[in-house]
């Protein structure tokens, strides 16, 4: 009998906090500047400089801690993590070890309809390192220290996940949360949200964990799943062929879809942490905590429940529409502006709007159609000025131009024909001109009716109400 394996996964996620200046200096954190133009004396680790902690970074860490129901340390300490690498000019990273600012919280994820609670061991503040560029410098390495000193919140989960799917669900949930809280822009391509995964396997039923490998820097949801699944397979293979998993750091290579060893963990991790004498203990008062608590936005789960209750949405569209704060705000603005049924608005949002954004590769914040202009369109659908079919035409024009729905309807003469007499004349004309389909329909082929409706809609340039046309046609034919 073959052994059944269970996977154990814990994630460490580095989120860049969306402050304007760095965690310990007044240099800008803006992405994409010319190399080293945002690296000041503190970031360069020049002698005699003193780090001074950014209040906003502390506030953001506390915001996160409150949102995951965590313990906020009344007293936390910065430590030096010592290692040598040229993108870290001081020879140490300022981080937190024994007394992190956030401890012991949790996040609920949903996988296959089941809710699972994932523990968050801790979240601590630290500074990011610079970037090394290894190409084209005559055998030397180029160092850009603009990123050095950017505030990071490292969020460490408990080893509570049992599959790559759960790990991805957790990562997505956390990504959604930090963006809701507006403490991180979540831009994975620019490295604002980075993930390391600790993965091990053990025979089902075994209480102790297997030896784990750490997979570094996996920067997309897709790669996290692939990298973890690959690593699970590798470890099972190693064990089943009589070998032992070594505790080590591995790097995921997306091109080859494999992980490979970076270094042996034992020799690399002698960081010799000690409290940083340049920084005093950070004290978070109850008052400070209360102030932050008062500014917490509505969290994703609460918003979703509200959308279900307030707008009568189903689980699926509520999940979609609350997947980001921007999208939820957009939707609520449309409902409010248009005054139309919430259902009509959510159908358009989850269907046409998200479809068009997807196709164009745009975020909701970049939508060429504003909530006001979409609301203008929905109003005209709701009051029967245009048919649903014509509305799609108008939406295309909204998307590709700047006119309002009313202007487009007016200019293109798209107003629905409400004059029954006019429609009746066209229906009669089409019946007369199409004896074939008429006969087919009368002999029981219902499909033939569609052809006739199509003809009529064509004659009216889509301006008749298809429901009414249908009804009128049947009445006339069966009449």
């Amino acid at each position, binding site marked *: 009998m073959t052994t059944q394996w269970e996977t154990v996964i814990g994630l460490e996620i580095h989120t860049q906090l969306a*402050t*304007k*200046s760095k965690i310990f*200096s*007044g*240099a*800008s954190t803006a992405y994409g500047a*010319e*190399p*080293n*133009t*945002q*690296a*000041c*004396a*503190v970031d*360069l680790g*020049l002698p005699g400089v003193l780090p*001074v*902690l*950014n*209040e*906003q*970074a*502390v506030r953001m860490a506390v915001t996160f801690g409150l949102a995951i129901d965590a313990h906020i340390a009344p007293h936390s*300490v910065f430590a030096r993590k*010592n290692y*040598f*690498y*040229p993108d870290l000019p001081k*020879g140490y990273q300022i981080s937190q070890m024994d*007394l992190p600012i956030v401890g012991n919280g949790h996040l609920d994820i949903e996988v296959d309809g089941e809710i699972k609670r994932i523990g968050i061991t801790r979240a601590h503040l630290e500074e990011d390192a610079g970037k*090394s*560029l*290894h190409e084209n*410098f005559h*055998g*030397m*390495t*180029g*160092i*850009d*220290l603009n990123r050095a000193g950017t505030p990071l919140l490292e969020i460490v989960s408990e080893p509570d996940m049992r599959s790559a799917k759960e790990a991805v669900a957790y990562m997505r949930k956390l990504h959604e949360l930090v963006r809701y809280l507006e403490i991180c822009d979540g831009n994975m391509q620019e490295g604002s949200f980075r993930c390391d995964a600790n993965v091990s396997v053990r025979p089902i039923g075994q209480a102790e964990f297997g030896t784990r490998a750490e997979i570094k820097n996996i920067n997309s949801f897709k790669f996290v799943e692939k990298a973890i699944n690959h690593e699970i397979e590798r470890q099972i293979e190693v064990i089943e062929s009589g070998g032992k998993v070594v505790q080590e750091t591995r790097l995921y290579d997306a091109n080859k879809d494999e992980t490979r060893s970076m270094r042996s963990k034992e020799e690399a991790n*002698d960081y*010799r942490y000690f*409290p940083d*004498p340049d*920084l*005093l*203990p*950070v*004290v978070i008062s109850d008052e400070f905590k209360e102030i932050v608590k008062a500014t917490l936005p509505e969290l994703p789960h609460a918003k979703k429940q509200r959308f279900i209750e307030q707008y009568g949405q189903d689980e699926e569209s509520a999940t979609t529409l609350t997947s980001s704060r921007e999208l939820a705000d957009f939707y609520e603005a449309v409902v409010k502006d248009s005054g139309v049924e919430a259902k009509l608005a959510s159908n358009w949002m989850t269907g046409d709007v998200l479809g068009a954004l997807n196709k164009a590769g745009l975020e909701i914040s970049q939508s060429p159609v504003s909530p006001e202009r979409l609301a203008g369109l929905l109003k005209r659908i709701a009051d029967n000025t245009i048919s649903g079919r014509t509305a799609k035409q108008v939406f295309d024009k909204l998307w590709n131009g700047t006119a309002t729905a009313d202007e487009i309807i007016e200019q293109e003469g798209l107003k629905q024909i409400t004059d029954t007499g006019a429609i009746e004349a066209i229906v009669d004309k089409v019946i007369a001109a199409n004896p074939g389909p008429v006969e087919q329909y009368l002999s029981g082929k219902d499909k033939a009716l569609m052809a006739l409706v199509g003809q009529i809609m064509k004659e009216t340039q889509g301006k008749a109400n298809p429901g009414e046309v249908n009804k009128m046609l049947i009445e006339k034919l069966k009449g």
Partner: protein
Amino acid sequence: MSLTANDVKKIAHLARLGIDEQDVESYANDLSGMLDLMTQMSELNTDNVSPMAHPLDQIQRLRPDVVTEHNQREHFQAIAPQVEDGLYLVPKVIE
């Protein structure tokens, strides 16, 4: 507690300190003496003393999140051994 010559060499390597082979023994002795003092101190009962992370009994002051530093790259790079395209150049760190 006593440190071996190998411990001393390892610590020196981690801190990237170049030490002379002939001095290793005396470093080992000195450092061991310091550790002995720690051991002696840890015999004291500190149950009612909360640990301090800093000798000053003060708390960290926070600065507002404002960009106050501006580009002084040329100034800083004037003292760098080698620069190119705005980057600091260092000996190659990966293969």
